[in-house]
């Protein structure tokens, strides 16, 4: 059974055509950005709620998986993954604007509810990208900010993620795809589980070892 290249060639050429490639790049980078945001939120919750324990209870013994070095890795990833998300969001925005099939300007991508095309749902995307930029920018300049100010902005991450999810659900014509629904449902389930875990963990009484554990081993990504 051979492959009819003469029949397939026009489709391959069409698939590689720039406008269509941008159209699919917009969708793909949007999904990946949402997944990276989900991972960022999960890492933030894990870094904040992860119990600091050691095996002998003194605060100086061998570390369990929740020890300061594990927290260091979690905090490091919590710093790096959102930067990746920003890159994908940037590509998502640029491909949308350059594609030109829908009238979305670069201003509309950052000024909420200013686009004539699906004003509300695209506005949510603009809100999410603005919040993401605010959270990432304030984290990058955190040494020069007061902790309370940084933390106040950082809490916006909990708004950014659901807004981005709503943007994807409302804007995309791809949301009826079963695997897209599965991805979004899995993201919601993962974040909901992490939030419940953190709330349950935060209600446990702090042990002496926890209070004695070094509090500033990382740069303090306690979301």
């Amino acid at each position, binding site marked *: 059974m051979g492959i009819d290249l003469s029949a397939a060639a*026009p*489709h391959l*050429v*069409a*698939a590689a*055509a720039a*406008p*269509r*490639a941008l*159209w*699919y*790049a917009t*969708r*793909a*980078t949007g*999904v*990946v950005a949402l*997944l*990276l945001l989900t*991972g960022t939120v999960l890492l933030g919750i894990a870094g904040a709620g992860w119990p600091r324990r050691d095996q002998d209870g003194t605060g100086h013994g061998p570390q369990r998986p929740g020890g300061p*070095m594990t927290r*260091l*890795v979690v905090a*490091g*990833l919590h710093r*790096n*993954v959102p930067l*990746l998300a920003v890159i*994908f969001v940037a590509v998502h925005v640029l491909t949308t604007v350059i594609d*030109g*099939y*829908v*009238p979305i300007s670069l201003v509309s991508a950052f000024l909420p509810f200013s686009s004539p*095309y*699906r004003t509300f*749902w695209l506005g949510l995307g603009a809100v999410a990208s603005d919040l993401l930029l605010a959270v990432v920018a304030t984290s990058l300049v955190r040494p020069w900010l007061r902790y309370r100010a940084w933390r106040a902005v950082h809490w916006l991450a909990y708004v950014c993620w659901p807004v981005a999810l709503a943007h994807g659900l*409302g*804007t*995309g*014509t*791809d*949301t*009826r*795809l079963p*695997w897209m629904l599965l991805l979004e449902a899995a993201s919601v389930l993962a974040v909901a589980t992490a939030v419940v875990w953190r709330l349950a963990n935060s209600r446990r009484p702090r042990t002496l070892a926890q209070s004695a554990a070094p509090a500033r081993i990382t740069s303090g990504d306690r979301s």
Partner: protein
Amino acid sequence: MPEHARAAARQRDDRLALIGRITTGIAGSAMAAALTFAAAFAHAIPGHAGPPPTSPAGVSGPGPSSTGSAPAGGTSSAPAGGTDQHTGQLAPPPQHPAATQAPSQATSGGS
């Protein structure tokens, strides 16, 4: 430098290197995922290589999540030989931007 401080510094360096490796892995995975998603979307969704609707009245589907009950080529009188393979799947954006009026020669060929 005391031995235990040196060991702690070494352990910290190891963890920082681990962070770098994991981050690189995540970045590579994200790129691969983006390509995979793009291919999956290209397979499932017609895209906009076909003719956009000529007027809002001609739009098929109720809104953003239109399932494209009408074939993608349904808004044109394209010849049968150049139809979209992805018809019957999801529809492209139903709203037609004013700035990109469909050229008169446009058909759904090759999309």
